[in-house]
């Protein structure tokens, strides 16, 4: 019994032949198990989709009601039998509804972790460690320079800047699913209780988080707010909006960006960011290595990201390790462009 008899990496994603399904396929398939709602993992057009309630809801919000032929909900900790394999979903701590998927056949346990983080996030269920034989991991931040363990320190930095530059607006670039809501929740946890403004692209997902009982305090769409009223405020927007005409409605904005990429200075400078905030929804180097070590796995597969360093590290630990180089993951940022309507409404504001 080999892991390859359970899951095979294919160009279209991870395929489980005995179970007749794919995990996070990058092209339409008959049956898909989806780890979380980011568009590089959750695509429209599959025959049947099995995922958590939140992931299905998010896909519906993004793609419309007919995003899949049929859907089936599964809860954290719940198991399902597909062919002769057993699958179960476990919290990944990445975004609301995100899951790791354990696939078990004849005693061999493979965990496809999707995207995950092992740090606190007030907007989603904490990461659960799932012991396994083969651990399939991402490596978005798979270099020992990526360390983002102090997210509260970063929001404190943002609040100090808002206090100092009270006549300017602060724009915080953040991915619209997960990061935006996490930043808002963290600002609340730090005691910031003023209205937080939103770019239109954030509206639906943020409202959904609130519906699910996540307290984000007073949030409002920024559209229609007068320039002068935006002095001293915080607005959350997609990263691409900060260099759009849209940003001109703000008084002398301070450009912040909440991302693990902000750890590297050149990355922040290329984007013209003046207030980088190292806040990530992915595991950092310490998170990746400690998670791999703690699962007790003897083999690691790396789906995407900076796989070379992580594979090298795993080899040094005496683990079997291989990169899968799945094409199409890690593009969430690229899909974050605001809808054209939003750009147009910005031009005349």
């Amino acid at each position, binding site marked *: 019994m080999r892991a390859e008899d359970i899951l095979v990496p294919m160009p279209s994603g991870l395929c489980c032949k005995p179970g007749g399904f794919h995990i996070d396929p990058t092209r339409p398939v008959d049956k898909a198990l989806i780890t979380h709602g980011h568009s590089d993992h959750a695509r429209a057009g599959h025959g049947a989709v099995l995922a958590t309630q939140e992931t299905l809801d998010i896909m519906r919000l993004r793609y419309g009601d007919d995003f899949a032929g049929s859907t089936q909900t599964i809860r954290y900790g719940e198991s399902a039998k597909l062919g002769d394999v057993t699958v179960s979903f476990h919290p990944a701590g990445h975004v609301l509804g995100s899951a790791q998927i354990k696939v078990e056949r004849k005693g061999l346990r493979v965990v496809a972790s999707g995207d995950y983080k092992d740090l606190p996030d007030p907007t989603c269920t904490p990461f659960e460690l799932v012991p396994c034989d083969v651990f399939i991991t991402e490596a978005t931040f798979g270099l020992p320079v990526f360390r983002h363990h102090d997210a509260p320190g970063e929001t404190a930095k943002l609040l100090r800047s808002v206090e100092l530059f009270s006549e300017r607006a602060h724009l915080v670039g953040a991915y619209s699913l997960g990061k935006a809501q996490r930043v808002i929740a963290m600002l609340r946890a730090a005691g910031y209780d003023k209205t937080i403004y939103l770019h239109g692209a954030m509206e639906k997902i943020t409202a959904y988080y609130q519906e699910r009982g996540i307290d984000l305090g007073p949030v409002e769409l920024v559209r229609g707010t007068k320039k002068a009223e935006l002095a001293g405020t915080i607005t959350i927007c997609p990263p691409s909006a900060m260099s759009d005409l849209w940003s001109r409605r703000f008084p002398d904005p301070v450009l912040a960006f909440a991302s693990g990429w902000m750890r590297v200075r050149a990355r922040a400078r290329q984007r*013209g960011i003046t207030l980088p905030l190292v806040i990530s929804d992915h595991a950092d180097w310490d998170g990746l290595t400690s998670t791999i070590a703690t699962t007790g796995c003897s083999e690691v597969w790396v789906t995407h990201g900076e796989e070379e360093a992580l594979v090298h590290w795993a080899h040094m630990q005496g683990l079997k390790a291989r990169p899968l180089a799945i094409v199409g993951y890690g593009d969430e940022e690229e899909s974050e462009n605001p809808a054209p309507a939003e750009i147009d409404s910005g031009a005349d504001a």
Partner: protein
Amino acid sequence: MNRFAELLDRLAYEPGRNNKLRLIADYLRKTEDPDRGYALAAMTGALSFKNAKAGMIRALIAERTDPALFALSYDYVGDLSETVALMWQPVPLPPRSGGEGLGVGGDLAPQKKVPPTPDPSPPFASQMWGGEKNRRNDPSPTLTDVVETLSTLGKAQLPAQMARWLDALDENGRWALLKLVTGGLRIGVSARLAKTAAASLGGKEPDEIEIIWPGLAPPYLELFAWLEGRGDKPLNRDPAPFRPAMLAHAIEETDFTALDPADFSAEWKWDGIRVQAVAGRDEDGHVVARLYSRTGEDISKSFPDLLESLRLPAAIDGELLILRDGRVQSFNVLQQRLNRKTVTPKLTAEFPTHLRAYDLLAEGDDDLREHPFEQRRARLQAFIEKLADPRIDLSPLVPFQTWDQLIAARANPAEGGAGLDADAVEGVMLKRRDAPYLPGRPKGPWWKWKRDPMIVDAVLMYAQRGHGKRSSFYSDYTFGVWNGDDQLVPVGKAYFGFTDEELSQIDRFVRRNTVNKFGPVREVTHEADTGLVLEVAFEGLQRSTRHKSGIAMRFPRINRLRWDKPPREADRLETLEKMLDKSATSDPLVPAQAGTQGQSA
């Protein structure tokens, strides 16, 4: 160190001068003595640590990391200090859970975070926030700890001390420490800017600090006490102090009607560096000589050759120039003498400095600044004769009775009296005969009237988004002219000269006429019949091997938008070649330095 590290971090990203000032002032206000004083010293370049070199940092990180992981990381980050700051793994490692028997190497082991236990807790239960920060037991060093320790520490003990500090600091703190000790903060803050921020603490003018600065030393306790109203103004006991410079306004054609030529005298405006050369006697009667920039920075170290000529106690306002065989060299030549770390005898021989004097602020114990210009000028003339030094001469007056005569002299300095030095003249200065020497830029007594710039019509080829307020605007423009093959070749880059209204017009044009995108840069339509012609003004041309066109412009800016002109009618490279031949003043022995930036002084 943490607060200082956060300040450096924010300054490194912040392009706006006023915002930098705010950040520095806020830091100085909220930080205790003596930390803030050492921070001010670091920003004004008053600190230097000889022993910390890149090689030592490399050796330190090599002890802590796997070479392959370091190589991959360095390759990704691209900066040694930053890579080390991020990768540094503190020892000893805190105990970690799980993973027994994996043989984790001490260098690589994750040092934090026990992964949450597999407890199916309710989704939105309150989360633990604590424990993420300040996991270490040892307090991190303060800036004062670092500066004071380094000032006494021997070279041999340095690596171990650095390792202890790196262990105790977080990523940002380590980055700041490495920047501080290896020298050169490179955060876009001049000494002047840092002093201006300090002055704002007490609502003072930066010149007040400049005047007393030479008598001060880190951590500047007296200075802060004075700024915060807790103490007297520190006295400058420096025998050769700086006196705030008097600056001129640019004159407009319309100003002349209100001015009487009889009230003014005129001088050439030399294309060099404005300096103040001061000499005085210390308590033992020895002559102390210093050279200051017009903002009061002590630049004596860069010009030891000129310093020797300042033998008599006085304060001269004048222009620093390079003279070869009695002839003033172009600013391009002077630039090659500037910003050199070490001044070698070879450099001073090849680029001999000279002071062309145009004002005398003090002589011996006499402060002359209250006297009218005419009297100061007479004292200056007598003083220069008495000094009789070949390196210091008097800037001649330009004779004129009517504005028309002055216009003619300005249009043709060679005929107007500047002779062979005409190429180093960048216009004329007008000074009221009865005006005292006033600090700052008072309107009326002094006017500068620059030569007309050179102008070409060029075609916009590429546009890049700006920074700060301009981050949503395409505000940096690369423009070109036609070459012999009827191709456009880039000849320069400009990012100012236009109004806000023109900026938004160009921005709109760029967005609608983009043919290619390269990151923040857009290639814009530039065909014979479609494209935007920019009238570009500049101060001079020089040969450049860095530019494809072989030409670099000095101080280019957008003069006008020529919406009316089709690109085919823009200028050709030959036109620039002709201008270059005409204006060529650079010495053929010295290759012209590439670069288009204007003079800084």
